């Protein structure tokens, strides 16, 4: 196939821009990673970081010193897996009916759900509710209050709407039940959006810390990010003359431990994402199903 010269140049430019962008977005993370495996003092002399200075994994050793970090990893993985599955299931159970024109409650429910995107009772009433339902210190407190994200659900609904209507109609006319249609026809064709939303929900659970602070008191049940956040955050407010703030500045967590904490929370995402990314490859599925 002949390729026009204009096409090749534009392709080269395309690649070039993307690669340059990718390098700029890679650098901050690379910097953090290299810092985390450098000797703390050597690292402090400032400047660019291409390679570790005085390679040392002491920061990671310090980080994983107490068993608590391991337990919290487990808690986070539990909530992420269980939570994401439920997120997707509930989102789909709403998105599918809402994508059908013949669903009589369509407009009403859409508005009702959208309303909650903008208006919310706030942290305290939600907290009191969770407490009232006796969910404090259980994984359910981390999963139930955010079971469906309207944003994600609408994306799913839109994606379902973009599938050929004929598929759904003919299956329904043949007498198939909605659940079966959803599971055997719609979902297999929707792998890209499921991968995308799975990623969104999964990352939400992985990075969530605020609900951990509010709803979990027992350190054994706490999530990873709450521990890491304490190491990463340096209070910007207030002077350092009070004893507590002074303790923060005076070596409670080494700077490289901070970097290790950041790396520890990002690396799993880097591992999972490329695996999910293959679902974003164009048109593999529609073609095969149609044939």
């Amino acid at each position, binding site marked *: 196939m002949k390729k026009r010269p204009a096409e090749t140049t534009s392709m080269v430019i395309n690649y070039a821009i993307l690669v340059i962008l990718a390098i700029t977005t890679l650098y901050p993370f690379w910097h953090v990673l290299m810092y985390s495996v450098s000797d703390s003092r050597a690292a402090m002399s400032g400047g660019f970081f291409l390679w570790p200075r005085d390679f040392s994994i002491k920061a990671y050793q310090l980080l994983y010193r107490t068993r608590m970090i391991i337990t919290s990893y487990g808690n986070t993985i539990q909530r992420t897996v269980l939570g994401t599955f439920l997120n997707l299931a509930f989102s789909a159970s709403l998105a599918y009916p809402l994508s059908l024109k013949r669903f009589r409650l369509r407009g009403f429910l859409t508005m009702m759900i959208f309303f909650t995107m903008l208006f919310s009772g706030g942290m305290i009433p939600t907290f009191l509710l969770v407490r009232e339902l006796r969910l404090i210190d259980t994984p359910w407190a981390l999963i139930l209050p955010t079971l469906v994200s309207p944003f994600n659900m609408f994306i799913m609904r839109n994606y379902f709407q973009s599938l050929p209507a004929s598929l759904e109609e003919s299956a329904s006319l043949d007498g198939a039940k909605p659940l079966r249609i959803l599971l055997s026809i719609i979902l297999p064709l929707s792998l890209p959006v499921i991968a995308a939303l799975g990623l969104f929900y999964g990352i939400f659970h992985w990075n969530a810390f605020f609900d951990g*602070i509010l709803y979990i008191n027992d350190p054994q049940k706490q999530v990873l990010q709450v521990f890491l956040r304490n190491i990463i955050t*340096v*209070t910007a407010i207030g002077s350092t003359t009070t004893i507590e703030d002074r303790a923060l500045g005076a070596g409670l967590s080494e700077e490289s431990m901070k970097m290790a904490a950041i790396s520890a929370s990002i690396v799993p995402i880097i591992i999972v994402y490329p695996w999910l990314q293959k679902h974003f490859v164009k048109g593999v599925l529609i073609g095969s199903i149609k044939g």
Partner: protein
Amino acid sequence: MNQKLSKILALTTALLIVFTLAACQGGTTTTTGSTTGATTTKATTTAATTTTAPTTTAPRDPVTITSLHSGVTVPVEQPSIVLKVRELTNINWEPMLVGSADYQTKLNSLIAARDLPDFFSFGLVNGLEYKDSGMLVELTSLLADYAPDILENRGEFLASGLNTADEIWGIPKPPGYHNALAVRTDWLTNVGLDMPETLDEFYEVLKAFTENDPNKSGKKDTLGLAANILYPTMWQPVFGAYDIAYKLPVMVDGVVTSHLLHPDYLKVIEFFRKLYQEGLMEPDFANMPQMSTLEKLWNGTYGVMGFTPVGTTNNWMPGRYVESPPPTFGWAVIRGPEGKGGFNKSYATGYYGLASTCEEPEEAIKLANFLGSKEGDQLLYFGIEGKHFKWVNEAEGKYEYLAPYNDSATQRADGGFIFWSQFNRWNDNAEIRTMNILTREGLQLSIDNPVSDAYIYQRPAISAELGSTLGDIENEALANLVVTTGNVEEEYAAYVQRWLNEGGEIWQQQATEIYKMENP
């Protein structure tokens, strides 16, 4: 394709079942160590009795007292220091730890749920609100009966701010450590100058530190004055040379007002402008992260820094300093044209209080008293003698941590230091007793050279509406006036006008009234 899919599905389903079951087992009980605590207590009391049940006068079950602390460590499940406290007091103490950035959020959620920890910390502003809402227990009689150590330690300072002589609502936490001006004496030697005592000498020293290669590296890699808008201590010494108490209320023509409106304010700005334009102070002072400033001290960039000696020459020395041998510091008091100079006084602004929802206030105060006694204070700070540390020379305050607790993270994980800051003693606590001589000198120099201020304990009513507005305008003024290339007087006048218009005028009025009331 189908085989693979069903395998994945099966695996996922299995994982889900496992996780769901695990999730359903987590109950709502939060008692972490009460049972073990109780058994160790019982174990130490039973001596002779072997088989039969305890005798009639069995010790009552230890009461549970909780406290909320702010800190960033991850403690082990059963910190031995906490266990020791339980053992010594026969009270089941359960401290809870929250990251300091989230302390208020956590506390607020507990308040809303009426599930308060028994002890918690707060500032004056919140304290007044808590008192009015009935959240705090009035402590006078409880302290008289059960807390001799606290009474003796706080003495006359007990009745101030939140408290009056007859009503104690919160136990004041020690005021912050004083500020001091640290100057690198090794650099002074290298450039052939003495410790500066006047503004002019100070300027000369900063110039030499920036331009004359004081660290003998052959490169231009040093800077005279450390400055960061987020650290008031770095600006305060120059303000002190004009007897202006930076960031504290000051008296101007009989009115209590902000340091911004002091007649000599522009003179201070002039000095900083000179430093800024000649490159003798940190040029990125306005937008530099706090950690970067400290790093530049530690890696030997800065020659002079205003900061509490407890950091500069005590806690950070020598571990945080990169250079080998570590830098040597001395203390300076810079005097202005009228011979004035010095450092802000330090006022207690923090308290800890007892929640009105506490079911056993007597036991709670007993616990607080133990933790505020010399023994408890030492236990919380260092740990168990013989296990975490040992005295090398107790009279001089020399001590040594024992392995593996010589690693600070390990010591803190076992309960060292992290709970100390709420209950600790004034002046006579473990930390102060063990500071090195240089640090103590710096603190004393600061205490001996105070700057005049018009401090008021109560807050003007309008503060609640303004939040940090006035303080932000002050910061804006300082930062912009130092760097501006426009007309300094005009811009200054504009900032003063803004300060007055956006609530400052009312603030002044109310503050002056309060001052008259507090200082009849």
